[in-house]
């Protein structure tokens, strides 16, 4: 395809005109490719996967993982879908969700500064704060959320 485009450009009359067309074509192709890569990368980094099984069992939809606290902490946010199940999930401090890095051998378990015992309202977002154990999670990486026997893979880390 590229060779065919070059062959068409050769038919453009005038040496300088051809050169200008070639340079313009190279620029357009390059910028388009770069733009596509940027768009693909950015959409890939912001789309958060969903798990129907987790939502059915725990009544929550995880929505964001972010490295905060100058790299020392991680926040995990979730939207409440089912208030009763979500309240049980949030109160079960002995079986917290675990965040595992997909890039390195490491992860972190739940720490929370959200008070347990809330009546969680459906549709609202709540959060958990984690220690970022050994810097396990980093910006732009992917993580797996393990909760009970279920998992949610390829969650982007902001």
């Amino acid at each position, binding site marked *: 395809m*590229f060779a065919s485009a070059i062959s068409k450009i050769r038919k453009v009359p005038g040496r300088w005109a051809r050169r200008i067309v070639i340079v313009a074509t190279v620029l357009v192709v390059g910028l388009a490719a*770069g733009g596509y890569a940027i768009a693909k990368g950015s959409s890939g980094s912001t789309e958060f996967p969903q798990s129907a099984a987790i939502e059915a069992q725990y009544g929550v939809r995880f929505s964001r993982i972010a490295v905060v*606290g100058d790299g020392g*902490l991680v*926040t995990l946010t979730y939207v409440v879908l089912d208030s009763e199940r979500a309240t049980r999930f949030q109160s079960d401090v002995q079986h917290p969700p675990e965040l595992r890095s997909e890039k390195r051998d490491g992860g972190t378990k739940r720490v929370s500064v959200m008070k347990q015992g809330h009546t969680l309202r459906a549709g609202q977002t709540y959060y958990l704060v984690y220690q970022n154990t050994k810097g396990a999670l980093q910006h732009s990486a992917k993580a797996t959320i393990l909760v009970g026997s279920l998992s949610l893979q390829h969650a982007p880390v902001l």
Partner: protein
Amino acid sequence: MKRLTIRRPLALLSAAAMIGASALIWSQAAASVAMSEGLLCDTDPNQTFSLTAEDGYVSTPDGNSIYMWSYGNSKRSFQLPGATLCVESGRPVTIVLHNTLPEATSIVFPGQKSVKANGNPAQPQFDSGGSLTSLVQPAAANDGSVTYTFTAGSPGTYLYETGTDVDKQLQMGMYGALVVRPAGHPNQVNDRADSAFTAGKEYVYLLSEIDPDVHLAVERNQPVNWAASTARYFMINGRSMPDTLAPNNAPWLPSQPYGALVHIKPYDAATNPLPATIRYLNAGSVNYPFHPHGSDERVINRDGHPLQGPAGQDLSYQKYDLDVGPGQTLDVLMDWRDTEQWNATTNPIPTQIPAITDQLLVGSDTWFSESGYLGTKNSVPANLTQNNECGEYYHIAHSHALEQATNYGAAFGGMMTVFRIDPPAGCASQ
């Protein structure tokens, strides 16, 4: 000839790929550079700024999206709070306000003297019936503009805020911070040498509140029921906990660029002799009793003026609760001192540290790792959790009016953040 025919398209393809890769690398580099910690200043060699009064949306940690008005840098998009402007004392400042809002708006600069608007003294405006319409000359609705000029006053921190329909526009977000630095001493809070702080360890805490019902009414162009107005969200720099912990320019908070994490190391006479500075401003309607756990802070400036006597006596004071009144600013110095020098081997804590279960604040969360020694960690029971990966301390700092430390009533949230104190050697894992 055949070789040339193949090589030229290949060369051109390579050039295109390089351009594309460069665009990608440039984009990623720009994104990574954007995130940071500490004070983000707008500066200009001529101290001339262009602000645009505009509308936009902010997000709260409970998933709400709230319609706001604010003053953004005209070269950027909407942001809350308004752009933090940093200027030098004694030099002229020019601020051009462009107004895209559907009603007139303005800026007042409490603490600045001889402010002019379009070259005339800035002064209250009245309608033909003698009713006050604005505290200063406004920019007309829908693309009006006005230029304010003044000479930057005493070094310190000041609010800039709307002077038009103040109750409503202040609630809608029309405020920002003005940092005036002493001439020739960018790392001092005021002209006193004892106000010096560590370069880069400078923080602004602009405190505010939101009643979402007011914002919804304004968005829908409906009347505001002020009698029923109740603030539900409380913010530091336009963010509520846990968003306060996120870095500046966190990509998931595109309209709320300023973080609120203090990150320091212990005082050390040789290696870390200077404190950090925190500049508190209250853009809300009630007192915010801001309480940093773990260490007092030294109040050295109030409303942009040093706390000193007529002969320059130091009148600063230590405070564990910073009562920041509406419209007020306080500049403080803070450090963390290992006063007792506890050491597990040479100077052990002479008492038994209470069981971790006695130290839990709420639920099972703790910022303690069963060791009272900075930089040391012990194991914690399996059913408990802790947050300090390398034995660093995280001191909670929050409004002690505890309804202000919630996100629409859900604790904890709101006007809360943490101060992070690393061991002297730092955190190797981060």
